């Protein structure tokens, strides 16, 4: 990508992943109904909000804006007529007509004030959206720079280890050390690979194919049973077929499958043998809702708002291998599809992740 080499690294904007609530909500677990809307993509023009998602505020501002000049003109004319008519005669007539005059003059002024206020609110909303879009774009550039800076050193280390191994001058302990270091390099390589994956998901053109979420869920259930630990968990998949099957989702089947795989992987990793894992889907208000639920050890309430961030690992998860990028990836995939993610959890009881995807 242009501008990558030689670009001095900028400050990472506060660690807030795109799409989560801004700093003023920090510390309070997100309730299901108060999730922020998806952040506009960096590539779309932030200045013009999409027609489909126009908030009611903007619509009312439109109507008021157009009406304001007419209202003002009418009011001024009415006021002028009234005043000349009234002042031409006795002042007592002026007093009698005071209410009418008040309405004729104050009315349009109030309407104008209302219109101005609505206009201002709309501008604030647009400005906020623009700031959020720029933060998302900068975040994306950061991911690319990070990936770029890590790749060469990792490659050099890997090559050095291969050379040392191949030299044949190591004893058994030396061999063991090299292997151990190679494992750590592999771990770092996975993290950079996941970061690249994330940056890619955020920017690649999305395929728009009709995706049968039911089939995806069945496949994810299969995958769950095949992964390590799957045999010791009770995995069930529930997809409605009655009275009618789920509508399709317009999207990229591979990305959606990747998102589900990550959720299923988490459910397996963070639960003990004998736990139950349920994959569910249902239709609601023009959305296909997918839920992955487990009876694992859950996530602490104070950590819950931050789970969608990159490289975030729960403090209870430290013993389990993972890059901390799975949920960030899920969030990016769902975001690109115009959907939303929600998570609920109770420590020692379990967790449910809900993905809301617009149906085709």
């Amino acid at each position, binding site marked *: 990508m242009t501008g990558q080499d030689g670009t001095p690294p900028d400050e990472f904007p506060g660690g807030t992943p795109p799409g989560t609530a801004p700093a003023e909500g920090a510390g309070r677990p997100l309730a299901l109904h108060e999730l922020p809307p998806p952040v506009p993509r960096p590539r779309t023009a932030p200045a013009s909000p999409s027609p489909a998602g126009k908030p009611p505020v903007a619509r009312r501002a439109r109507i008021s804006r157009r009406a304001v000049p007419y209202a003002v003109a009418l009011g001024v004319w009415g006021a002028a007529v009234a005043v000349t008519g009234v002042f031409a005669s006795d002042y007592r007539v002026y007093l009698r007509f005071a209410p009418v005059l008040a309405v004729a003059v104050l009315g349009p002024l109030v309407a104008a004030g209302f219109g101005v206020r609505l206009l201002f609110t709309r501008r604030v909303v647009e400005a906020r959206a623009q700031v959020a879009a720029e933060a998302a774009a900068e975040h994306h550039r950061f991911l690319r720079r990070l990936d770029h800076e890590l790749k060469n050193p990792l490659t050099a280390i*890997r090559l050095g280890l291969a050379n040392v191994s191949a030299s044949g001058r190591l004893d058994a302990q030396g061999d063991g050390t090299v292997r151990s270091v190679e494992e750590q390099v592999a771990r770092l390589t996975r993290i950079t690979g996941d970061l690249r994956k994330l940056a890619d998901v955020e920017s690649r053109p999305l395929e728009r194919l009709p995706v049968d979420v039911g089939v995806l869920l069945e496949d994810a259930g299969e995958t769950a049973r095949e992964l390590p630990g799957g045999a010791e968990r009770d995995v069930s998949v529930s997809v409605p077929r009655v009275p009618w099957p789920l509508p399709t989702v317009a999207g990229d089947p591979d990305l959606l499958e990747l998102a589900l795989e990550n959720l299923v*992987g988490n459910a397996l990793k963070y639960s003990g043998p004998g736990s139950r894992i349920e994959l569910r889907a249902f239709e609601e208000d023009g959305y296909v809702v997918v839920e992955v639920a487990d009876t694992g050890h859950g996530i602490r309430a104070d950590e819950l708002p931050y789970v969608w961030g990159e490289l975030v690992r729960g403090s209870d998860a430290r013993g389990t291998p993972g890059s901390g990028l799975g949920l960030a990836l899920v969030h990016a995939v769902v975001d690109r599809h115009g959907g939303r993610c929600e998570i609920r959890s109770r420590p020692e009881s379990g967790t449910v992740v809900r993905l809301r995807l617009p149906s085709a």
Partner: protein
Amino acid sequence: MLLADDDTAITEQLGPLLERSGFDVRTAHDGTAALAAATGAPAPDLVVLDVLMPHMDGREVLRRIRADGAWIPVILLTQVGESTERAMALEEGADDYLNKPFDPYELIARMRALLRRSRTGLPPLASSRVLRAGALRVDRTARRAWLADRELVLTPKAGALLDYLVTHPDELLSRERLMEVLWGWESASTTRAVDNRVAELRRALGDDPAAPAWIETVTGEGYRFVPRVEAER
């Protein structure tokens, strides 16, 4: 062979490793030096080219090598994972590419596969617009494929997979490598996405996995495209 990368930490390690594997290695650390070494005499048998280099980037060097005429096999070490970048790399005539950080033995395997092909004297597949394998005809620039007279209807990923398979015939392609080719990354948990696309291709080609004529599964390792592929002139 020529190894071009501006990062000396990499060339200082990779050079000796390749020499130990039987290659005679020359190194270059920027684009202009790389171009001079690639087009001068004696010409290298193969070039491993990093994309981001000072003075001239790897893609420009590749373009000029191709413009020079003789087809030297080139492996690009692409710096970014975005699919459009990879597509451009292949369209500009790279024979193969590898994302950093890579497994050095994977690089060596790909180098050997490319040299095997170029030593047969057959025209390189990467440079051909149309390839034939039996009844299969693939137009790479138009991104269309026909089996006898019937055009194959494939999802974009399956099409990209077919393109990679016909340009790397008779090579053992691991699932991880195919994941990297098609998506630019390796999946952390499973490579099921690759299996799905292979299944789709097999259905389209009418291939029986039990007795494959087109795509063979090498158990535990990956896939291999079985038929002979020729460039159509």
